[in-house]
């Protein structure tokens, strides 16, 4: 390495994937110049607490940072924060920034993440309508969470429900409107949806399923005052949170002519079709050897795992992305841990019951465990990680039998 000329690696994006990449490069003693360009004023930080304990005001901003900014800078990495990458010139290998400067890159890693999906409905621009994606959003929403206020959440997915739990803790009056017939439909099975429905109902949240939103009503002051429903009628609101998913941030890549399809297309080494450009995290539709088809994943685990893959690729190692995705969510006293993608299952097996302190749902396809959702039962998640990663065939009766220790299902067997 000493005889080689130093190259410059530019990372666009300052989220979890970018942060994990900086860390991995430092730990692996990457010899080249590294510059991170991030639109937010913060060094890479944890987003999950933005809907949970950070929103509830239980932890401070500094504690969100993956590391203090000085750690990266003392190690020689350059952080250009509060600056947006505007255009990639692939022929000249440069990238122009919003502060009118231009950066030269030898290799470019796109970690542009995602942005919230906005509702395009009458009144959607009214004051008092919030989205939740970054620290500033969470700060703005927290200020409004005052006891007795009426918060209407559009969307009953992870973010909407986590906010419902955090807001309820602050004695806010919460209503959740979900267009689908059950909560978290995109990511979990009916047993879990039912369990979370009960949990939120018991906490006093007004949950309305099969409820599509058509627009927003304004007060005389031009502030949101209600949410109008497709079924007719209006739900009065002082604050609205729209949490209806995210869209991968691919504009920069698309403008540069890189193939995108609801995500920047990358292979199992996180390479785009341009040998100088790689992409990681929420913004990618990627090949993961664990799956049969291209996937796009919105998760910390994917961001971190792809960051490790791209670090290996940058350093000339061949380490394909090959891990089972996993997720978690905290709501009230419930810790939900999930591994695998459950939507492709043909059989569900319940271990324990939702009335127990902890229980789990195993999702099988062709007799193999492809996903596990565990509620306050980390052992099911940990065993599930192994079963899913190894595509283990397991007798469903054993999964549900409380007399059989879950651990015994993974010990002492060889991997096939």
């Amino acid at each position, binding site marked *: 390495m000493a005889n080689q000329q130093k190259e410059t690696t530019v990372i666009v994006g300052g989220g979890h994937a970018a942060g994990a990449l900086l860390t991995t490069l430092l730990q692996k003693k990457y010899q080249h110049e590294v510059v991170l360009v991030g639109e937010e004023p913060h060094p890479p930080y944890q987003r999950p607490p933005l809907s949970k304990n950070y929103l509830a005001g239980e932890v401070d901003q500094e504690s969100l940072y993956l590391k203090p900014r000085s750690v990266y800078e003392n190690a020689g990495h350059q952080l250009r924060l509060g600056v947006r990458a505007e255009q990639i010139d692939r022929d000249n290998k440069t990238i122009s920034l919003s502060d009118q400067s231009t950066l030269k890159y030898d290799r470019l890693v796109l970690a542009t993440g995602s942005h919230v999906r906005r509702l395009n409905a009458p009144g959607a621009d009214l004051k008092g309508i919030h989205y939740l994606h970054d620290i500033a959003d969470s700060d703005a929403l927290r200020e409004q969470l005052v006891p007795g206020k009426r918060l209407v959440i559009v969307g009953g997915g992870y973010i909407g429900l986590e906010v419902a739990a955090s807001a309820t803790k602050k004695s806010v009056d919460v209503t959740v409107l979900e267009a689908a017939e059950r909560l978290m439909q995109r990511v979990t099975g009916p047993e879990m949806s039912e369990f979370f429905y009960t949990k939120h109902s018991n906490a006093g949240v007004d949950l309305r399923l099969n409820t599509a939103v058509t627009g927003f009503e304004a007060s005389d002051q031009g502030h949101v005052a209600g949410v109008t429903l497709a079924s007719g009628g209006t739900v009065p609101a002082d604050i609205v949170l729209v949490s209806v998913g995210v869209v991968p941030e691919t504009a920069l890549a698309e403008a540069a002519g890189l193939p995108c399809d609801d995500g920047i297309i990358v292979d199992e080494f996180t390479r785009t079709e341009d040998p100088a450009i790689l992409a990681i995290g929420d913004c990618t539709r990627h090949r993961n050897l664990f799956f049969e088809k291209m996937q796009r994943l919105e998760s910390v685990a994917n961001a971190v795992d792809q960051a490790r893959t791209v670090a290996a690729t940058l350093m000339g190692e061949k380490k394909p992305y090959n891990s089972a995705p996993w997720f978690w969510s905290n709501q009230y006293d419930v810790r939900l841990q999930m591994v695998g993608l459950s939507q492709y299952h043909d059989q569900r097996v319940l271990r324990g019951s939702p009335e127990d302190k902890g229980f789990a749902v195993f999702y099988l396809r062709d007799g193999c465990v492809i996903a596990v959702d565990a509620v306050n039962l*980390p*052992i099911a998640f*940990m065993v599930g990680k192994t079963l899913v990663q190894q595509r283990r065939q397991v007798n469903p009766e054993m999964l549900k039998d409380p007399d059989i220790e879950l651990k015994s299902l993974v010990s002492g067997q060889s991997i096939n």
Partner: protein
Amino acid sequence: MGKITFIEHDQTEHVAEFKAGSSVMQIAVDNLIPGIDGDCGGECACGTCHVIVSDDWFRKTGTPGGEEEQMLSMTPERASTSRLGCQVVITDEMDGMTVHLPEFQM
């Protein structure tokens, strides 16, 4: 303020300074100690911050909670003084503590 020593599986030692109130995982992450990932940011959700506390110090850190115990029970490198680093909140009394890192995180 105090110091904690992390010893990697290959016996490489790292001494890190701490402020009370931080977790063992966060101290390791802030100091780029290899072998502790802390992917979930300290929510006891991922099991990637396994440390093995030196016997003499285990009394100070205390034993794992029920859910932490379940997370730890799956690591083949489980020791009697294993903890998840994110669940050990540092106090001034832990100045001088030594923790060992496993060869692999889960």
